[in-house]
């Protein structure tokens, strides 16, 4: 018997994990330093500044700003629509990625490129496009100007590529033999998708969803023209921040920013947790 080879490696042998830290070499130390400095200058310090500005009026002030009727409505609309759009994108983005990877059809190359248009288009141009298509002079006879549908539409437009682009490469890398193995073990197409393919795609879907959500709640350019920015109805958080600054009230602008920041962060964390769960459950 080949027991020597078949014997376990022992739990310790394969567990030389990087966790806990080996001492850094000078080069990787320098690398880490540069990365941290860069990250601090671009992200951490500005973020901290926003938080500091927001807290200038104390927690009470912050709370007051945020619970102001008009501001709260703007935040609710923004977060709610971004969440809804992200849910739609999870389904549609995965579907489009699937079609792009698995199917062959005329015009596939063109579609591949067109998918990125919302990425590439300056958002105000996107706003202009949406206005001319779905505004008062719509050639399609669809007028959503000054309604919440306009916000939803604008979010959908600019967030379309995120999940498609994160899922597509992962799907393309999936080994067809894995699906054949599942089939020969008796799994239907649906079971194979749910138990085998979907868990493999979940990290990519989650990453795309986080990007899509974050882009949604920060969106400005593509919706200002079409939504009309009606207080309590179609005004979104970014517009609210801008009007606070225009009214010389940076504290209140920062307070809204902090709320958005917190929600964004929470969503990213939650998506990561969900993703891990789905992957583990299979």
């Amino acid at each position, binding site marked *: 018997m080949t027991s020597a080879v078949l014997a376990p490696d022992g739990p310790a042998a394969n567990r030389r994990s990087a966790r806990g830290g080996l001492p850094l070499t000078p080069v990787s130390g320098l690398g880490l330093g540069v990365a941290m400095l860069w990250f601090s200058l671009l992200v951490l310090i500005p973020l901290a500044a926003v938080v500091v500005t927001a807290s200038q009026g104390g927690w009470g002030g912050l709370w007051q700003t945020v619970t102001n009727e008009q501001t709260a409505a703007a935040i609710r609309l923004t977060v709610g629509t971004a969440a809804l759009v992200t849910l739609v994108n999870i389904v549609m983005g995965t579907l489009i990625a699937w079609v792009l990877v698995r199917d062959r059809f005329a015009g596939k190359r063109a579609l591949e490129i067109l998918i990125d248009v919302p990425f590439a288009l300056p958002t105000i141009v996107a706003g202009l496009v949406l206005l001319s298509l779905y505004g008062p002079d719509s050639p399609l006879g669809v007028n959503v100007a000054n309604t919440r549908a306009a916000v939803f539409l604008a979010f959908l437009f600019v967030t379309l590529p995120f999940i498609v682009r994160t899922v597509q490469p992962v799907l393309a890398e999936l080994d067809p033999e*894995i699906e054949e*193995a*599942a*089939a*020969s073990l008796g799994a239907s197409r649906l079971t194979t998708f749910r138990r085998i393919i979907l868990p*493999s795609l979940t990290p990519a879907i989650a990453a795309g969803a986080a990007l899509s959500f974050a882009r949604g709640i920060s969106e400005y350019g593509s919706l200002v023209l079409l939504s009309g920015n009606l207080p309590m109805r179609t005004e979104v958080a970014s517009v609210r921040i801008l009007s606070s600054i225009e009214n010389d009230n940076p504290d209140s602008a920062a307070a809204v920013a902090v709320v958005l920041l917190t929600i964004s962060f929470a969503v990213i964390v939650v998506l990561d947790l969900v993703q891990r769960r789905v992957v583990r459950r299979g």
Partner: protein
Amino acid sequence: MSIEIANVGKRFGGFVALDDVSVSIPAGQLTALLGPSGGGKSTLLRIIAGLERADTGRVEIDGVDATSLPPQKRNVGFVFQHYAAFKHLSVRRNVAFGLEIRKRPKADIRNRVDELLALVHLEQFADRLPSQLSGGQRQRMALARALAVEPTVLLLDEPFGALDAKVRKELRDWLRRLHDEVHVTTVFVTHDQEEALEVADEIVVINEGRVEQIGPPDELYDRPANDFVMRFLGPVTQLGGLLVRPHDLQIHAGDGKPAAVPGRITRITRVGFEIRIEVTTNAGQVVAVTLTRNEFLALGLHDRASVHLTVAPDSPTVATTSRPRASASASLAASR
């Protein structure tokens, strides 16, 4: 649990992968589909599994016509060359997959999986992910996963092809022993004639989409049906119009018997215990002869020595003109 393959044909575009193949694979045995790459053996295996559909012909598994059954309904275990592990599932969950989707009771699944993990010596790795296993371990996991659903037949597509030579040899011995324990009708595809000769009860030699010969390893080796089988199963050399194995040639120093072919030694190479001698006959043909070291020393041969060659009695030989391949494929084309 026999498999009957009758008149199966398969084309991929203009390429004929299988051409009217009929094989019956007996129950409970370990059968090898042996042949060069691109010869159609993997296609045949995939047709048995239902992963590929035959253009023509019938497949019967255990007396049931499976020709148009989807893979899910065939109850075959399939093992892939590159493991096809479910990467996000632990070893245990991989093995349990087929049982879980059959909605077996949890306790039953647990017991069965434990049993299988013991069978493939992976008990200690049950909670690892496939990426934390070596290639050999992954393939054993794939084997346990395929066996979990108690398949009617077990199909292995170049199961050891991705492994290094040493692990490959060990797994091959192990598969043979496993088969002696489990007795499930097993078909495996290989392009390695040594693997087939060593492990299989029965070998089906497939080349260019056709079956060249079917039989137990000894029969194939000792009585090859044609020059292809002869060449594919081991080293050959040509003496006159005969294909013969280099170790079946006898070499005589000096003047030989009347039937012997005279020549001169033009090269001697030693590889371990084996001596490879190149003899150029008086007719100008270069013939390879292999001897053991002891035989070589006993004969007292040296470079440039004149010798005579004979074929050892009862050795397998095939006339090189037994089946000119060009005309065979020409007649095939004409019949279409």
